[in-house]
């Protein structure tokens, strides 16, 4: 297809349900009462919430119209850097929808949940194999929850040795959740600058690592899309002072089947199933952030743990050093099924291929756009590349303007203004999902926008032009938010 993806079409306006409702409308009928009426205690009753009265078609049209205003990876390319917005294969949904899984109750005893426990048991092993670690917990409900779990494991490890440490090292390219998780666990984050190549140097870590530092939290590949090449040396420095190495595995999609995290010195890593393992992301479903550890930390993992005994799967609680539960039950089970389905559909060879293609796609974009946009670090990247608006500033065009204009061309904007170490950052992560034709179209759109920036900058300042909602007043939205339903 040569013409631009972005076009206009009839998009229907839709009011709030409260504006749409009319007293007396109803979308369901309940069966006739066949028992004696039994009034509730008056203390337990009140007028009830203010819900609008709506018919079935009112509700269906409401949500269908809202969905048509939306843009998702099922509609087009969604290259949000560091978010790995890869396509979610539909077979995942089918497997998760099997009644044995979708109807399972978390309070069923183990002997009535053998299938579900078997999946969890195997899934833990798959994730350990993919990361090169020894044991896994599936309880954390999202990435940041995985980070917190990891920090609790580090705390428990030092406590078991009778020591208490107060600091964790975090590079300046980290996700904002990293220092937040560290702080929530009572540690003080110590920020370390990345070097002129955009990665950590072993010397910088040696300078700050001391006997009061519990460990380091490093995202690898980092948020500049660069592999932390000195990680092994850094791990040696941290280990030499009895610290632990935590890897934020948000960017694992670059290195599946390629890097054995356990072998390069990582003690703990969390995974984002909603990124690397293709489960729906953002509004599409809950996340899941399993944590994998090396053998020496296994005894600290949350309970209950799924273990196999005499051919049966049981939920074992007897781990006295455990940090205890981090989830009410077993984590987001439905998400696990989808990721399990993905791993089994792909197999080891294709998981590795997915990572290779994700890296190839990002490098293709980097090479083809680096004369159009300023490239922050001109060296081979992993699964994402980071540009900036440096060449466009002279035309008074900023990253935000180009991102908004991309919508007119039919693409979701990339991540902007992150990582913070690059001024006016534009972080593009195409993932392995996109074909060469799609990537070419995206690249051509970006080139056209850069031309517009030179010739008609106001076009960009006013973008998007063809979306349902035009340029939002983000400042007003943040200063005076309207949170009405």
């Amino acid at each position, binding site marked *: 297809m040569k013409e631009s993806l972005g076009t206009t079409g009839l998009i229907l306006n839709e009011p709030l349900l409260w504006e749409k409702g009319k007293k007396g409308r109803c979308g369901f009928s309940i069966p006739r009462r066949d028992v004696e009426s039994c009034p509730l205690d008056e203390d337990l009753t009140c007028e009830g919430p203010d819900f609008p009265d709506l018919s079935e078609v009112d509700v269906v049209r409401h949500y269908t119209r809202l969905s048509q205003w939306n843009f998702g990876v099922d509609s087009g390319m969604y290259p949000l850097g560091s978010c790995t917005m890869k396509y979610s294969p539909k077979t995942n949904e089918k497997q998760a929808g099997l009644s044995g899984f979708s109807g399972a109750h978390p309070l069923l005893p183990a002997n009535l949940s053998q299938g579900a426990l078997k999946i969890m048991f195997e899934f833990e092993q798959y994730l350990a194999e993919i990361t090169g670690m020894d044991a896994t917990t599936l309880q954390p409900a999202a990435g940041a929850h995985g980070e917190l779990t990891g920090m609790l494991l580090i705390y428990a490890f030092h406590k078991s040795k009778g020591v208490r440490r107060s600091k964790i090292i975090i590079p300046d390219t980290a996700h904002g959740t990293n220092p937040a998780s560290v702080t929530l666990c009572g540690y003080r984050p110590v920020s370390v600058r990345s070097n002129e190549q955009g990665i950590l140097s072993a010397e910088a870590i040696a300078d700050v690592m001391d006997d009061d530092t519990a460990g380091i939290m490093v995202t690898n590949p980092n948020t500049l899309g660069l592999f932390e090449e000195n990680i092994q040396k850094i791990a040696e420095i941290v280990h030499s002072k009895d610290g632990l190495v935590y890897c934020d595995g948000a960017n694992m999609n670059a290195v599946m089947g390629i890097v054995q995290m356990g072998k390069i010195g990582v003690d703990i890593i969390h995974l984002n199933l909603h990124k690397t393992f293709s489960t729906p992301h953002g509004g599409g479903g809950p996340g899941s952030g399993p944590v994998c550890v090396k053998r020496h930390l296994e005894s600290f993992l949350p309970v209950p743990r799924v273990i196999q005994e005499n051919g049966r799967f049981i939920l074992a609680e007897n781990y006295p050093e455990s940090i205890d539960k981090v989830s009410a039950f077993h984590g987001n089970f439905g998400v696990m099924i989808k990721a399990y389905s993905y791993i089994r559909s792909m197999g080891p060879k294709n998981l590795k291929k997915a990572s290779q293609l994700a890296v190839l796609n990002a490098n293709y974009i980097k090479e083809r756009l680096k004369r159009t946009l300023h490239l922050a670090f001109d060296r081979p990247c992993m699964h994402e590349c980071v540009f900036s608006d440096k060449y466009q*500033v002279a035309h*008074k065009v*900023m990253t*935000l303007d180009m991102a908004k204009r991309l919508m007119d061309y039919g693409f979701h904007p990339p991540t902007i*203004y992150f990582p*913070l170490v690059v*001024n006016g950052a534009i972080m593009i992560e195409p993932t392995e999902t996109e074909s060469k034709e799609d990537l070419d179209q995206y690249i051509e759109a970006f080139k056209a926008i850069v031309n517009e920036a030179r010739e008609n900058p106001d076009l960009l300042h006013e973008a998007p032009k063809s979306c349902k909602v035009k340029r939002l007043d*983000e*400042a007003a939205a*943040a*200063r005076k938010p309207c949170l009405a339903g």
Partner: protein
Amino acid sequence: MKEISELNLPDDIRYAEDHEWARLEGDRIRVGLDDYAQDQLGDIVFVELPQIGDTFEKGKEFATVESVKAVVECYLPVGGEIIAVNTALEESPELVNKSPYNDGWFVDVNPSDPSEMDDLMTNAECLEKLKGAD
């Protein structure tokens, strides 16, 4: 965003490395965020200020500014006790964008060592530094 030549850097105030400014007003020092910082941050949506009576050493974090682009910490250019805060910023954080040196001020400090002002940059030095960084 502004070109360096378009920046407003008055000569009656001093500038810190992280783009806080300090102005001697009688025996107190008024502190805010300079034109370069407000321009780089874009529309500011929230400013978190300290409490009156808090004391900070020079260079310590005393405020947090959130814009549509980023959240940044601000460091006190001169150590001392906070004796006034600009409560207008609670309701109208955009004052920092509109009037960084007047209505958009952050705090007044009773300096523990007024000579700390001397370590800060003049507007000419600040401009030189910005040119070098670009």
